[in-house]
Every structure is written in structure tokens, then in C-alpha cells.
């Protein structure tokens, strides 16, 4: 044979569909090779006679290329463009070669040819299935410290990338009437039919070009070569406005209600991808109907040493020859139980490859193929088996024996192609929750009961006859088109389970699952050990759990188990097929959801101004809030101390915009709030506001906030920052479903208003010049007043309120005006000696006053009474959400945890938030804990630490000494009330 010298010695002139002049260079384990454009890594390496590509998982046996598609279990490689763009576990049979690709083998050390790990192969008698459950138990710690690390190092395949992925990924939602998975004869025909109806059709195929089995088959369609017909058909479909054809795209998951996940490989085959091109694209499709035309997958034969490099599926050899123009060897043996392998032999023979023999385990191969073989002068050994092979890094011979006979002979080969028949690809059908039935005659599982609006056509439906397949596909598409086709041969045969050549079970390794090194005897051992369900067998042997997910091994494993158990296959069961069909890159599933787009970072209107003032920010839910404003040279502690002092002594400006706000409007607004809050609202006069507590039916504090009444029928409700969405949802739930008779509506106004809190003795002086048309004196506008007014010419809402215990106002201006108003107020505040302060200072100041923060001082198990807020629970109302829950036995018992203040005996000692409190620090563990520290700060204003805690029976313990035991010391504390500053409350009036 004479191949193109630079693209490989095994390249056959005139064969294949690639253009000899268009080459690409790549390296494999450091050596440079030339490929043709359109080659997969597998075809390119085979063209150079390279068969050894990897090492197996457990025994580190040399492995080659078994398939020509995504079902490949062996040839998994590490493919990189550059250091950051490195991808482990890439199938050589799927990855297209691109110029400059750097490719390396995996799971071997020091080299692919001499791998120390292959020592495991010699020890394999010890490493029977499940051996690790029976040993490595002594001494106790040895598993984790000694054995497990050794096992972990030996296991695994590729190396994870070491750098963050610089590539980007795209995502798209799309809807269609009909999605067709698979663009072989069946899929293309169904697409033509569906497209003719004018419906919106998406046709998907995982290969670079449509055609499926037409890549290698000798099929004629509409008088044309099948592959050419496929390309012409695709072109026709692409030109139709209602059809989308996606190649290099895998339908990886068929989920509920017609939802499918597709992954499109956009640039992995391109040498220099455009910078805007995503590496892969996720398609999330909602299809009204799905046509599954996923074809079938050829199975290998299970016999001794069936895993050597050079042994591959017959259909794979055909693909390499007919599509890529590559011969898999010079002298090729065939071992089969199915007619399909004969066609591979014919093609190879015609291309000039020597066929050593066709070994057929059947005594009656198909007549048509037999006579063709005779005509081509190929030796057919029917009723024979391959009982063994030899060759260290590549097969060098096969040992053939007549079935039941004893005289074996060795036949020299440099490749062996095998076929045990075909397994319909029912993965997506099964994922869609369809139920399978077992086709006894053909030993295969086929779609039976459909759970979704889908239909299987062609080989995946067990339809082997081409004319029937075409009819089925046309009918599924719903249109009327005419397609006619012809195969050269009708195929017969097939087997599942161990072949004759699997030999005596204890002597040989006849691989069922290549990647996981599961052999026929492992499955038999599992059955002997009591594993009678296929799920147990699968888990015990790990058969079908490798990265090919049992596409080749499941049926064989099932048959061997069935034989061992003496039970028919359906009774042994079939493990469920789970998504994804082939592995899917995390980056693709995530698509844009990374970095800035991982989770929206919500910023207030004043964010940029605060940043310019040097603010440090903290995450509060999705929000970024100004945490503190350090001046040059200040650490957080110093900045917070200064802010705390300045606010109490002069004043401070704080961004409170993130507080949730809900506009409650309607004649029944007060009645509604009466039901949703523990407080009474009908008594609140317009122009006034009140602190409210919301409980759920269980009586525990759910949220809190100040509610202002703007008019008889209009309330401005505030919630906690984190609670805003769930509080609104909670309110809507009651309004829509429990109290729909109330005439009231709710609107979120959180983001309508920028809220600027001005607090401190000079608060009024600071805001006075900006407020128009409103007397904000103590007398006219006392604490807990609210009014609509103009601020800097803008219609605003002004609250007189305080979360610091100082004289305070909260200026609500429409958000776009926030920056301008904030700037003006801050300039004036600064000139009067006030400061900016952030959430940390806000926390300290409110703690000094004993004001709680829901979610910090309470945790979903705290009642209003526990929090010392019983005054806010109306005693007059006959109903509110929580009224009954509050009366349950455990909520009214003595000794509940109550919020109290704590003062450390050593005033300099600041307790740890989350510190646990005990009465007797010397008791043995497990200690009886009385509660925990919920808030704890250094109070610069008091010159000492302060804390709030939940303590069992806390309010009855005033003055008691309790203890907070830490890892290195025990801190003594005194129980006090919660108000540490201005117990009389006079400062609130300035």
C-alpha cells in the first residue's frame, strides 16, 4: 500500500474523504505528526501506525483505540492549546486534529511504553472485584493514612487543569416543534419529512458532519452514495428557514416536559479560534416533540486478552478507512458474531489490506456475506473462536480454535477487528423516563412505553431494514417526502455475553468494561458473592461506571450475570441511563454565569460616591454595602471607633438604601397590616410611623421594620435588607390566598428610593437647608413622624427615625436623585464635623441602644417575647399571623432563651460572636449551654465592650455571673439589660 508519506504510512491513496494537501501538525507525547484536516486524533495517529494510546484504570494495561466515536473507553488523552487551555480525558476518536495541538497520554509513569503501574497487572489475582471491601481494615487509621492515598494515586485518569480557564462559553434557550437527535439516514429522513410540514425543526448530530453510519456504510440513497446524499440533504435543510442543523452538537440530556440539553463544540477543532467565539455553546431546548434517531453502537467480543492495542470494533476500522482513508493494519484479523464485520473486511481487502481470516463464532454466517468473502478470497472460519491474543504493546497474533475443539493455532495479525452485534442507543429514550422492553429474538432492549411526546426511529428503535427505517422516519416527521435506499448486505447475527473465547473463567482476562478493567470473571464473582441485581453487580464490579457509562459493556455484563444466575435478562434488570449521554464540560453548563455574571452584585445609587470616599464594602445578600470609611492610616477598628464617636457627638451620614420597601395601598391597607404584623396599625395616624414585627404562623420573628402611614390608604413599609423579597412573597401569599377580600395592593419600592440616614445631635442642622415646605422641629415633626416634602427640589419622603438612639432622619429621594442629594448633604455634614459611617458603625450604635437585628440576634427560633419585644404584640387583636403559634406549649414555657445584655468583667475583653454561655465553666463535657453571644462590639463611646446574648431564662438572671469558655480561656460576664447608652432615651430628641 502506498500512503501519503507525510500524513502517515497507513494512509490509503484514494480512500477517505480528506484532502491530502490540507494538513495539520500536532504532537503526541512530544513527537510531531502530520494529519489531514478532518482527521480525528485517532485517525491521524492510526495513519502513522500508532495504536498504543493509553493505560487502563486499574491494571494499567496498554490500550489502543477501540471505537471511532464518543463511546470510546480507552483512548482518552490530554489535549492542550496552551498551558491554560488543557483538557484531560479527551476521546481521541472525537477530538478533531487542529494545527498546533499538543496531545499527551495519561495514567502512566514514567512513559506510555514503560509504565510502573502495570505492575498491578501481575498482582491482578489479588485485585478481584470488590477486594478492597475485604481488607485494608487494620489498623484502624491505616485506611485513611496509608491505603487510601495509594489507591487514590493509582486511580483517576487525567490531571485536572492547573489554571483558571480563559475560554468563554455561550448559552441559548430555544424552542422548536420538533427536535431530532441524530442525523443518520433516519434522522435526516425524519428531518426532511418534518421540515416539509413547515414546523420549526432542529436537527442535531454529534459528528462534524451529518451522516451517522453513512460515514462508512455501503448504502445507496436516492441513487447516490449515502454519505453524499447526507451532505446534500443537510445543505437542503439548512437552506430552509424553519430548520436549524447543529453539528458537533450532542443531545446530552432529555429532561422533563420536552426539555433537552445540548452541547455544541464550537472551537475545539480550530487552530486559531476567533476571540468572540465561545469554546462551547449550551443549547437549552424546549421541544414539543422529539424524534430520537440515535442509531446503535457496535459491541466488542468478550474473550481472553481482548484489550490489546490494535483490537477494535469492525465499524471503527471501516470509519477509519472509508472516511479518513486510514488502514488499521497491514494484516488484519476479524473476530465476529455478526455479519457487519464482514463488510469491514471487504472494504479493507479492496483497499489492499490483507485479511488474515474472518473468525466467526457462529456456525451459520449470513449467506450473502459468506459468498462475497469467498469471491474476495478471504478465509472464513465459521464456528471458530479467538481464544487468546498476544503482543505486549500491540496485538501480534490471535489464537484461533474451533468451537469445542482443542487444537488451537496462532495467526499473525497486526490488528484485529471485532463485532458482537449492535446495541440500540436507547439512552435518551430512557432518560425521558420511557420504559424499555427486551427483544428476546435479537437480545436487545428497545423502546416500549413512552413517557413524553417522542418517537424513536431507525436503529435505536430496532428497525434494521432500510426501507422500513425510512418509512418509520417519514411517518415520525409527519410530512410527505419520498426517500429510497439500498444496503449492499442485510445483516444477521449478534451475541451478548462472554464468547467461546472467554475461556475457562478463572484463567483469563476477558474484558467487559475496558476503562475500569472489569472482566467476565469479575461479574461471575459478584454473582457468587450474592449480588443478584444488576445494580449490585454494577456497583460491586464498577462495570459500566467508567466515563463511557457502559455504552459497550452494559449488555455483555448483563448477559454474563443472567447466565450465572440462570435468570432471563429482564429479571436481572437493566441499569437506568442517566444524563449526560457523554460527559459535558462544567464551563458549558455554567456558560456566562461566572465572574461578574455569576451573581448580580447589587449596588446602591450612591455606591460610586462611597467608593470615592474610600469605603470598604461588605456583602449582605446580593448587596454590596459600605462597611466603614477608613481615613488614611486607619484600620477597621480605628475607623469604626472614630465613626461611632462622631455620630454620637456630632452626626453621621449613612446609606440605608438597601432596606426593603413595600408600598401598601388601598382602603384595607391598615386591616391587612393588622393581620400580617403583630402590632396594631389602625391606631397609627397618617404622618406617623411605628416599628413593626412580623411573625409567621409559628410565632417566630420573621422580619421587622419601620412602617410609615402616609395617608389613610397608603403605607410605606420597610423590611430588613435580606428579607425584602421573601417578606413581599409572604404578604402576597396571604393577600392572594387567605385574605383576597381585602382591597389592598403591594408594590416593591426598594429601588425606587435612595435612603440617606442622617443621625446625631446635628442631624437636623445638617438636613434643614435641603428640606422644603416642612417644619422639622421637634415639636412639628417629632420622633417617628413621616412626611412627603421636597428635598432639593425633588418630591421625597422624610422619616424622623433613629437606629442609633440619636436624633435622626431618613431622607428618601427618588433613586436617580440619590447621588446629588447625598453629595449635598455630605458636603454640609462634613462642614459641620459629621462623618460618613458604614454598616459596622451602624451595628455598634444600635447595639449600644439594645436594638436588635433580625437574623443576627434572632435566628428563626425566637419569639417577640424572647426578644423583649412583647410590647409590640397587640393584646387586643383577635387575629394576626402567628397569634396561635405563639401560644404553643414550648413557646410559652419557662426558661426559654431570652435576649439580654452581657458585660464582661474585664471591660477590655470583647466576646466572640457565637461564643457559648455556661453557668459552670468547670463542668465536664458535654457541657450544658445556656445560650450564645449574638452581638458583641467594642464600644468606643463607653470605653468598654458590650454584648447581646440569648440566654436561657435570661431576664430572670439580671446581675448573675455567667461564663463564656473559649479554647484558651474562660471569660466571666454579667447579665444586664440591653440598653447600654442613654437608658433614659433623651438623646433621640437631640
Amino acid at each position, binding site marked *: 500500500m502506498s500512503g501519503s508519506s507525510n500524513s502517515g504510512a497507513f494512509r490509503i491513496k484514494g480512500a477517505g474523504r480528506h484532502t491530502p494537501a490540507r494538513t495539520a501538525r500536532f504532537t503526541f507525547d512530544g513527537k510531531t505528526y502530520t494529519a489531514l484536516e478532518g482527521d480525528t486524533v485517532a485517525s491521524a495517529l492510526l495513519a502513522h501506525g500508532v495504536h498504543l494510546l493509553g493505560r487502563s484504570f486499574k491494571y494499567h494495561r496498554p490500550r489502543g483505540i477501540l471505537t471511532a466515536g464518543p463511546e470510546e473507553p480507552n483512548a482518552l488523552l490530554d489535549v492542550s492549546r496552551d498551558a491554560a487551555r488543557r483538557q484531560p480525558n479527551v476521546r481521541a476518536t472525537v477530538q478533531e486534529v487542529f494545527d498546533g495541538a499538543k496531545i499527551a497520554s495519561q495514567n502512566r509513569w514514567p512513559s506510555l511504553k514503560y509504565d510502573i503501574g502495570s505492575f498491578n497487572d501481575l498482582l491482578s489475582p489479588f485485585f478481584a472485584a470488590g477486594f478492597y471491601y475485604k481488607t485494608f481494615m487494620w489498623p484502624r487509621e491505616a485506611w485513611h493514612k496509608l491505603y487510601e492515598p495509594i489507591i487514590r494515586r493509582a486511580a483517576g485518569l487525567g490531571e485536572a487543569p492547573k489554571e483558571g480557564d480563559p475560554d468563554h462559553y*455561550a448559552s441559548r434557550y430555544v424552542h422548536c416543534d420538533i427536535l431530532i437527535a441524530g442525523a443518520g439516514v433516519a434522522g435526516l429522513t425524519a428531518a426532511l419529512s418534518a421540515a416539509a410540514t413547515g414546523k420549526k425543526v432542529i436537527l442535531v448530530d454529534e459528528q462534524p458532519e451529518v451522516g451517522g453510519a453513512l460515514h462508512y456504510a455501503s448504502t445507496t440513497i436516492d441513487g447516490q452514495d449515502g454519505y453524499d446524499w447526507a451532505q446534500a440533504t443537510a445543505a437542503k435543510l439548512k437552506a430552509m428557514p424553519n430548520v436549524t442543523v447543529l453539528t458537533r452538537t450532542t443531545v446530552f440530556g432529555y429532561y422533563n416536559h420536552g426539555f433537552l440539553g445540548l452541547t455544541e463544540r464550537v472551537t475545539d477543532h480550530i487552530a486559531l479560534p476567533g476571540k468572540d467565539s465561545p469554546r462551547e455553546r449550551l443549547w437549552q431546548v424546549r421541544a414539543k416533540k422529539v424524534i430520537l434517531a440515535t442509531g446503535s453502537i457496535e459491541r466488542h467480543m468478550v474473550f481472553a486478552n481482548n484489550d490489546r492495542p490494535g483490537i477494535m470494533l469492525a465499524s471503527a476500522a471501516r470509519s477509519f478507512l472509508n472516511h479518513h482513508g486510514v488502514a488499521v493494519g497491514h494484516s488484519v484479523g476479524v473476530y465476529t458474531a455478526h455479519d457487519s464485520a464482514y463488510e469491514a473486511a471487504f472494504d479493507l481487502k479492496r483497499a489492499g489490506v490483507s485479511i488474515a481470516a474472518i473468525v466467526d463464532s457462529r456456525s451459520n454466517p449470513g449467506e450473502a456475506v459468506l459468498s462475497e468473502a469467498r469471491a474476495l478470497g478471504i478465509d472464513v472460519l465459521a464456528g471458530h473462536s479467538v481464544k487468546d491474543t498476544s503482543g505486549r504493546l500491540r496485538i501480534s497474533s490471535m489464537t484461533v480454535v474451533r468451537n469445542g475443539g482443542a487444537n488451537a493455532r496462532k495467526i499473525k495479525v497486526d490488528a484485529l477487528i471485532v463485532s458482537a452485534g449492535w446495541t440500540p442507543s436507547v439512552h435518551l429514550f430512557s432518560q425521558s423516563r420511557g420504559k424499555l422492553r427486551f427483544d428476546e429474538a435479537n437480545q436487545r432492549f428497545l423502546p416500549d412505553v413512552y413517557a413524553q411526546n417522542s418517537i424513536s426511529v431507525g436503529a435505536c428503535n430496532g428497525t434494521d431494514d432500510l426501507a422500513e427505517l425510512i418509512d418509520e422516519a417519514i411517518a415520525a416527521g409527519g410530512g410527505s417526502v419520498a426517500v429510497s435506499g439500498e444496503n449492499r448486505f442485510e445483516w444477521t447475527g449478534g451475541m451478548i455475553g462472554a464468547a467461546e473465547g472467554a475461556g475457562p473463567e478463572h484463567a483469563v482476562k476477558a474484558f467487559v468494561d475496558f476503562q475500569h478493567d472489569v472482566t467476565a470473571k469479575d461479574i461471575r464473582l459478584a454473582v457468587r458473592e450474592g449480588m443478584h441485581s444488576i445494580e449490585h453487580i454494577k456497583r460491586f464490579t464498577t462495570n459500566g461506571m467508567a466515563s463511557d457509562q457502559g455504552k459497550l459493556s452494559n449488555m455483555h455484563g448483563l448477559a454474563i450475570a443472567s447466565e450465572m444466575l440462570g435468570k432471563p435478562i429482564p429479571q436481572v434488570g437493566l441499569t437506568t441511563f442517566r444524563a449526560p449521554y457523554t460527559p459535558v464540560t462544567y464551563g458549558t453548563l455554567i456558560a456566562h454565569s461566572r465572574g461578574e455574571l455569576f451573581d448580580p452584585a447589587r449596588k446602591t445609587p450612591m455606591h460610586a460616591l462611597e467608593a470615592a470616599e474610600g469605603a470598604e464594602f461588605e456583602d449582605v445578600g446580593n448587596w454590596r454595602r459600605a462597611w466603614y470609611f477608613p481615613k488614611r492610616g486607619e484600620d477597621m477598628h480605628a475607623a469604626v471607633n472614630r465613626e461611632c464617636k462622631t455620630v454620637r457627638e456630632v452626626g453621621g451620614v449613612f446609606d440605608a438604601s438597601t432596606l426593603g420597601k413595600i408600598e401598601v*395601598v388601598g382602603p384595607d391597607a391598615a386591616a391587612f397590616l393588622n393581620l400580617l404584623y403583630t402590632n396594631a396599625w389602625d391606631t397609627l395616624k397618617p404622618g406617623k410611623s411605628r416599628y413593626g414585627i412580623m411573625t409567621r404562623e409559628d410565632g417566630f420573628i420573621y422580619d421587622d421594620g419601620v412602617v410609615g402611614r402616609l395617608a389613610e390608604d397608603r403605607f410605606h413599609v420597610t423590611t430588613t435588607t435580606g428579607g425584602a423579597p421573601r417578606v413581599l412573597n409572604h404578604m402576597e401569599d396571604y393577600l392572594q390566598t387567605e385574605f383576597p377580600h381585602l382591597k389592598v395592593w403591594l408594590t416593591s419600592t426598594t429601588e*425606587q428610593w435612595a435612603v440617606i440616614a442622617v443621625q446625631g445631635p446635628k442631624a437636623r442642622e445638617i438636613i434643614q437647608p435641603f428640606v422644603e415646605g416642612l417644619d422639622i422641629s421637634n415639636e412639628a415633626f417629632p420622633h417617628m413622624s413621616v412626611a412627603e416634602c421636597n428635598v432639593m427640589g425633588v418630591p421625597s419622603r422624610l422619616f424622623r427615625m433613629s437606629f442609633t438612639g440619636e436624633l435622626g432622619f431618613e431622607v428618601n429621594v427618588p433613586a436617580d436623585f440619590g447621588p446629588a442629594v447625598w453629595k449635598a448633604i455630605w458636603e454640609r455634614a462634613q462642614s459641620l464635623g459629621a462623618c460618613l459611617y458604614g454598616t459596622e458603625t451602624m451595628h455598634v450604635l444600635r447595639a449600644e441602644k439594645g436594638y436588635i437585628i433580625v437574623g443576627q440576634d434572632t435566628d428563626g427560633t425566637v419569639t417577640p417575647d424572647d426578644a423583649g419585644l412583647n410590647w409590640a404584640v397587640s393584646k387586643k387583636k383577635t387575629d394576626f399571623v402567628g397569634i396561635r403559634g405563639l401560644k404553643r406549649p414550648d413557646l410559652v414555657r419557662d426558661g426559654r432563651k431570652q435576649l439580654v445584655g452581657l458585660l464582661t468583667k474585664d471591660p477590655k475583653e470583647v466576646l466572640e460572636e457565637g461564643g457559648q454561655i455556661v453557668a459552670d465553666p468547670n463542668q465536664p463535657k458535654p457541657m450544658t449551654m445556656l445560650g450564645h453571644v449574638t452581638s458583641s462590639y467594642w464600644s468606643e463611646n463607653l470605653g468598654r465592650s458590650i454584648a447581646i446574648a440569648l440566654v436561657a431564662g435570661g431576664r430572670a438572671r439580671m446581675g448573675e455571673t455567667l461564663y463564656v469558655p473559649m479554647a484558651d480561656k474562660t471569660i466571666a460576664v454579667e447579665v444586664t439589660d440591653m440598653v447600654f447608652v442613654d437608658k433614659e432615651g433623651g438623646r433621640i430628641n437631640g
Partner: protein
Amino acid sequence: MVDSGANVATRTLPLSGVHGGSSVVRLEAAAPAERINLRVRAEDVAALSAALGVDLPVKPKTSSSGNGRTALWIGPDEWLVFGDVRTGLVASAAKSGALHSATDVSHRNTAILVSGPGSAAAINTGCPQDLSLDAFPIGACSRTLFGKVEIVLLRTAEDAFRVEVWRSFSDYAFGLLSEGARDAAL
């Protein structure tokens, strides 16, 4: 109230001056608008329509325009009505004399205008709705999701959409639209 002056506040839009897109999608911030969230019972829809000068659509997923105002059906008793600034929507609604709730959300939302042949594809990068013309014709509108944020989507032309989004989510929405616009051009 927007006039500049020593003591009069000026307006800062969340996406002020931002634009972007690709060869098939143009992205730009919409002009400031006045918006109300309007809640009305079925029996009072006519009165509010008359007062606002725009018919409140009662068919789901539809909108209507009139007198420089656009009303989007959001829910069975809920509309988003917007118009130019200083159009006085709250006051107009009040003139109806009928029971309703009109809440000013002019500053809560901001809007991004998406135009060009790749608009639908760009939006479908994060929006799970079917944006084909059959399913989402011109004038169709819906509150929906865009990636991880909620939006209100209005189709203003065959290849143009208005995306209303809460202001603090607008950076995210614009960023994701930019990604979608880039991919739509491929």
C-alpha cells in the same frame, strides 16, 4: 424639578451613557421615563384607561400605547405604565375616581433598548421564553427571567425589544446582554 441650580438635585441614571452590542445587536440605555405600577380591579379598568388616555390591555402578554404612554399587561390586575418624564401618571390615574393603586416606580426600573437582527437570540441567552415572532409578536410583553434577574420584556419591533429591569440589576442585565449580543453575531 430637573433644572440645574445650586440647591436642586440632578438626576444620575444607573446606565448613563452605556452602550454596546455586536454586529447584529445594538444595546443602549433608554431615556429616563416616568413609570407607575398600576393595580386595578377588572370593573375599574375602563375608568383607569380613560383617565390615563391609554387602553389597559386585558389580554395576557399584550401591551398598548397611546398619548405617549405605553401600558404593559403584567398580571390580571397589574400593569406597568410608562411614558416620558413629567407626564404625571400618578396624577392622571388619580383623576379616574376609581379604586386603584398607582405607585411611582420611575426610578426603581431602568430600561435597556435592544435592537438589530440578533436581538431575540441575544435575549435568549438568558431568557427562557420563546421569542419567535409567532409566540412573542410585536407588542408582546412579559415579566420573566433573564439569567439570574427578573426583567419585563417588551417587543417594540420585529427586531427590537425594551428590557425593563430594576436599577441594581441593570449592570448584570447589560453585561449578560452583551454576552448574548456577541454570541448572536457568530
